[in-house]
């Protein structure tokens, strides 16, 4: 007689139970009432599937071996039997590896019981119907096939007689899964006169190629299985015995691999990897900033269905000089990092109808922009790792053939962070700077968790591509700082459980993390100088210091960006600098101070020329006048046909005026190539700088845990608490079964007859005594349906024909009709 899982669990020490709960955290959500409930849940299909999902290929194969070696009578197997089967192949794995795998399975309670009588949790068979890709035993399928299989020599002869096309089908089914579907009618005999020979067509593509299947069925090597009532499209199954015979060369479980497959590529130069990644990281930060600046200048309206329109994305991509997928990725990451957000637009502030929300940078963007390059990248990379967005979907079409737009709800996928972690985890576990091909990564994932990675090649490739685009990887290998970031995130996640008060948290403390520091060392140091050249370009040989950046932004036009930046001084840029309050002397001073090379004469002339002309025209608010000390210039403006629309009038030899507003006058004049300056009532110049709009701050997703799907890790004290709770429930339940025979069988023992009066009065006396003593009492009673039941209660009061008592287990107050109470015994 085998023990049940519940009994087995009950017999375990607390630590072992806690270990189980730690390995399978889904069991405690919600906390099970008692050990039986725990056992039921641990054997449920969903929980078993989750446990299987996390297992590697080898462990799953060992589990299959355990299933195959079950004793048909009592369903038990033994470690040694499993070991014997696993090592039956031509390249047997080390017995220690097999034992370790069995140990893992037992720790998860997918196998339980003593070593010589291991039992497999039955739900495993539901979750994965074909152990090791083998079919059911012939005996379960078809008696005639069973008789064939019973005669090994005959079976072998039949197999050898199979034509090549049929053999190909057999080999494919033998590799698993052991069932295949055949086109309708393929199993029926062809019409008379059309008796076709077995074709040598190696494929089973339908049509006449169905014939090899028919041959196999006729020779009992395949068994047709009916699924439901339909017989038109058939399904065939390869019996286990035939499959095992076909697997002679590879062993009964197929090829076994105890360790993950090796990566063929030699590791790259770690410096080259880091360098390529760091270069990309700089790009990402720069492009993100560019995109957000774009959004600040021209916020993107939010579609009514959510997200940003295709056309807006295209516009952003074009102005940023990126392709659309990259733009979508950066946008999503920036949004997830809390750098961009929606702003409600009350009223018709946009020309487009119905657009009442816009996406633009948040206040957090300002904070981000002030951080160092490495910290900015880290914030983006963390957001990417934790965000539940599958950006690859953007631009594709959904089920209803509507395009999926960036930032829309359709691209939300809760499982993506786990996928990212799995893929990057594979890279992180390799030697540093190893660059596996996408296929190799897929193989590794297939080995690590075959049930999870199956059929997800596309998603994995996407993660690899995004990691490369974001500079987490370089030249296909995980960068050193990417490794640190990943480790940091993982350890933060694990620590969260044991550190609920955040005592050890250092992320928020403002110090750069290890990843940021590592990246920082790779990035060019900020420079505080530039080189000025005769063609009026200013080259900053590295990222500019913030102060230098502000100065350059004010007085030059950016021409080329990247590790260094090239700026050009133009008439317009100098004018802009003068407009925003610099004087010619300030500009000369900046150039002199910052330049490592002599200032070319042309630049000095340019600044002086513009400064000389700058402010030569003065525009006033009052009545919108235009005055200049230069009579000729006034004449020039007055004669300018492009300004005709302003209807300028000469007020004095040096003053013109117009009926229009100042802004229009200024614009028209500047468009026409003049350099006017606005002045206020007292005659001093008015300086203008553009104002910046920001969306309200948003919280970055980085504050979430890495994988929202994963159940929270529970610390040992809590686990022990849970265990204690379960224990208590269990004790109570067990106690319930231990009720005294008098109470349990009170009525039954007397053949269901009327309750003897003396028993009843005795019970009443016991109860009254118990009310006084506040003692626990076993109460036997007949419920409304006439069934007898017993309960352990603490009586509270007796009166009006009713007993009121408190059930300790459920902490509820029960009311019993006294005439139904059959017995009462003081609990010991």
């Amino acid at each position, binding site marked *: 007689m085998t023990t049940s899982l519940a009994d087995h669990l009950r017999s375990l020490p607390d630590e072992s139970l806690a270990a189980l709960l730690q390995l399978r955290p889904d069991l405690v959500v919600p906390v099970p009432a008692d050990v039986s409930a725990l056992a039921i849940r641990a054997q449920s299909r969903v929980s078993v599937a989750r446990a299987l999902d996390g297992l590697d290929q080898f462990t799953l194969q060992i589990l299959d071996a355990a299933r195959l070696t079950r004793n048909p009578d009592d369903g038990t197997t033994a470690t040694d039997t499993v070991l014997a089967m696993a090592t039956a192949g031509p390249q047997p794995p080390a017995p220690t590896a097999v034992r370790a795998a069995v140990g893992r399975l037992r720790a998860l309670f997918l196998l339980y019981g003593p070593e010589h009588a291991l039992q497999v949790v039955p739900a495993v068979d539901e979750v994965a119907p074909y152990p090791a890709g083998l079919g059911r035993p012939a005996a379960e399928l078809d008696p005639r096939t069973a008789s064939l299989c019973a005669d090994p020599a005959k079976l072998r002869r039949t197999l050898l007689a199979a034509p090549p096309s049929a053999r190909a089908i057999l080999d494919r089914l033998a590799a698993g899964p052991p069932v295949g579907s055949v086109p309708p009618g393929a199993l029926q005999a062809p019409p008379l006169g059309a008796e076709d020979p077995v074709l040598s067509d190696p494929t089973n593509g339908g049509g006449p190629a169905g014939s090899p299947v028919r041959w196999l069925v006729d020779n009992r090597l395949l068994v047709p299985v009916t699924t439901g009532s339909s017989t038109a499209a058939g399904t065939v199954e390869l019996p286990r015995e035939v499959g095992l015979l076909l697997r002679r060369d590879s062993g009964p479980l197929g090829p076994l691999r105890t360790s993950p497959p090796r990566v063929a590529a030699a590791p790259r130069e770690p410096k080259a990897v880091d360098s390529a990644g*760091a270069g990309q990281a700089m790009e990402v930060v720069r492009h993100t900033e560019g995109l957000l600046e774009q959004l600040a200048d021209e916020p993107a309206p939010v579609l009514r269905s959510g997200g940003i329109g295709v056309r807006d994305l295209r516009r952003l991509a074009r102005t940023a000089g990126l392709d659309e997928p990259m733009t979508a990725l950066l946008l999503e990451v920036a949004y997830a990092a809390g750098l961009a957000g929606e702003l409600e637009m009350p009223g018709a502030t946009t020309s487009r109808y119905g657009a009442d929300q816009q996406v633009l940078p948040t206040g957090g963007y300002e904070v981000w922009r002030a951080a160092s390059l490495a910290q900015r990248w880290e914030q983006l990379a963390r957001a990417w790792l934790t965000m539940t967005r599958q950006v690859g979907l953007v631009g594709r079409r959904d089920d209803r053939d509507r395009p999926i737009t960036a930032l829309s709800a359709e691209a939300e996928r809760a499982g993506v962070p786990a996928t990212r972690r799995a893929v990057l985890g594979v890279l992180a576990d390799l030697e540093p700077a190893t660059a596996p091909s996408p296929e190799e990564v897929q193989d590794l994932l297939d080995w690590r968790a075959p049930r999870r990675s199956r059929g997800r090649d596309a998603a994995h490739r996407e993660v690899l591509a995004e990691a490369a685009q974001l*500079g987490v990887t370089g030249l296909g290998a995980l960068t050193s700082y990417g490794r640190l970031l990943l480790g940091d995130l993982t350890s933060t996640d694990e620590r969260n459980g044991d550190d609920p008060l955040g005592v050890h948290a250092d992320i928020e403390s403002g110090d750069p993390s290890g990843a940021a520091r590592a990246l920082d060392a790779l990035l060019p140091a900020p420079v505080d100088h530039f080189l000025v050249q005769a063609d009026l370009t200013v080259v900053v040989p590295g990222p500019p210091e913030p102060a230098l950046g502000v100065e350059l932004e004010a007085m030059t036009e950016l021409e080329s960006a990247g590790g260094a930046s090239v700026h050009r001084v133009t008439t317009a840029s100098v004018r802009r600098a003068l407009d925003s309050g610099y004087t010619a002397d300030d500009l000369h001073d900046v150039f002199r101070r910052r330049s490592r090379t002599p200032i070319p004469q042309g630049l000095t002339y340019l600044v002086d020329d513009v400064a000389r002309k700058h402010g030569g025209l003065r525009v006033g608010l009052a009545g919108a006048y235009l005055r200049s000390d230069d009579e000729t210039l006034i004449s020039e403006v007055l004669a300018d046909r492009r300004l005709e629309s302003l209807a300028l009038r000469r007020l004095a030899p040096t003053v013109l005026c117009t009926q229009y507003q100042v802004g229009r006058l200024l614009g028209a004049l500047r468009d026409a190539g003049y350099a006017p300056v606005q002045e206020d009532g007292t005659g001093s110049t008015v300086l203008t700088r553009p104002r910046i709009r920001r969306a309200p701050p948003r919280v970055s997703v980085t504050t979430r845990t890495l994988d929202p799907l994963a159940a929270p890790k529970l610390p040992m004290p809590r686990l022990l608490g849970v265990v204690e709770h379960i224990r208590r429930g269990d004790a109570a339940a067990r106690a319930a079964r231990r009720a005294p025979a008098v109470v349990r069988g009170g009525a039954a023992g007397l053949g269901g007859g009327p309750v003897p009066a003396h028993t009843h009065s005795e019970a009443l006396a016991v109860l009254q005594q118990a009310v006084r003593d506040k003692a626990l009492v076993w109460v036997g009673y007949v419920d409304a349906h006439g069934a007898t039941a017993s309960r352990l209660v603490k009586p509270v009061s007796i009166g009006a024909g009713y007993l009121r008592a408190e059930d300790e287990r459920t902490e509820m107050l029960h009311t019993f009709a006294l005439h139904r109470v059959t017995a009462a015994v003081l609990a010991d």
Partner: protein
Amino acid sequence: MSGGPLIVQSDKTLLLEIDHPDAQACRMAIAPFAELERSPEHVHTYRLTPLGLWNARAAGHDAEGVVDSLIKYSRYPVPHALLVDVADTMDRYGRLQLANDPAYGLVLRALDRLVLIEVAKSKKLAGMLGDKIDDDTIRVHPSERGRLKQALLKLGWPAEDLAGYVDGEAHPIELAEAGKDGRKPWTLRSYQREAVEAFWAGGSGVVVLPCGAGKTLVGAAAMAEAKATTLILVTNTVAGRQWKRELIARTSLTEEEIGEYSGERKEIRPVTIATYQVLTSRRGGAFTHLDLFGARDWGLVVYDEVHLLPAPIFRFTADLQARRRLGLTATLVREDGREGDVFSLIGPKRYDAPWKDIESQGWIAPAECTEVRVTLTDAERMSYATAEAEERYRMAATARTKLPVVKALVDRHPDDQVLVIGAYIDQLHQLGEYLDAPIIQGSTTNKERERLFDAFRTGEIRTLVISKVGNFSIDLPEAAVAIQVSGTFGSRQEEAQRLGRVLRPKADGRQAHFYTVVSRDTIDTEYAAHRQRFLAEQGYAYTIVDADDVLGPKLPTVD
């Protein structure tokens, strides 16, 4: 930080800091695949373009090497995406090959079957491809060789042309390096020799050399290499005569062997020099002089000033793909952006040398560029201020105030040959009168031009006033000073040509001077700034002086 001299920008420009100790080595490493865009004094800018990368690929460089040199010399981390892009782009060249199949003739052969399938489907290639021979080979109509290459380049899959060339009609041509008719012996300069070798090894292609670096001799040496009948296409008659003179002097060819095919004469001889103008002239909508291309079995076609090649010539060239083609130019940059056609029809760039380098080797004179700013009189300013927009430049450029300044500049160089260059005929006449110098303009007959040039060359005439006709391909040796008073707006090409006038090597290595006279505070200054940017980008520092400093003796300064 490796501290290399190169900074790789994400917009695919490369910044080379030339004061860095490794700058020279880096320049040598990146020159094959990156195009020099600007070379001001401190930081040179190169650009990675698909054409440049394909040029490098055609010259036998592979992506690995390009990526290596970028990483090796780069000061900062190079973005991963850029490296991937470089490798991808380079990988596209030569996936398709044009080859001669012994059985089927000209075929397009694929090293990558998918590419062939992709391009064969393209509508742009409709009618150019013939039958499919096998999965990797498609027959090509020989007449479509050029157009196919053009179209494939547009599709981004440039084909490698391995189909070879016809030898053409043989004709003995030798370089007369020993001296001819009593002239002094001479030798090809080293870079000219390299240019010819690079061209000949590549089959067809373009040689980029600055003005005055002796492109004519590269052409002559290529002819001596081909030893076949040659068709030379030049921009105009004057340039053609120059070619002829040079060929007679420097090669074994005689006057009788060289024909001129122009508006005036229609001679077809073993070496024929034709002008673009006559070839592209039409009568009744048809090109009447196309027969020239078929008149002889040419072994070599030389295109002078490829960057000016008119569009119809491209069309003719598409039919000439079986002949060796040599393009000569100072710059591959075309104002019409048809660099791709030059690449596909004439050939990849085979040789390039930056101006400054050739100059430092002493082959072209160092030039000192000066901008002289004149202040307009009040009356001139007033009339400028009130002028119509389209008249403004002319008003500013032709201000009479410029005349005394020009005179003063000419007087500064009493011993030098001086060219005064302008764009407006009226102004040139004024200048001619004021300076008492002869004028060459569009209406001057070729005979008169040659007479004046000869007189200028011998030193009989010291000062010459020339109009826009002087922009192209005329040879004015020993002009040590050029003064430009007006130009075609801000054309950079014009600036290059004019600068070229004074960059010819001086016998005594004297300093060349290039003056630009501009009117202060007018649109003239803006255009001048635009042109000067070009000079600065070529590495010529310029100074700005005030007209008063030129006109009067310097005022004694009181310290």
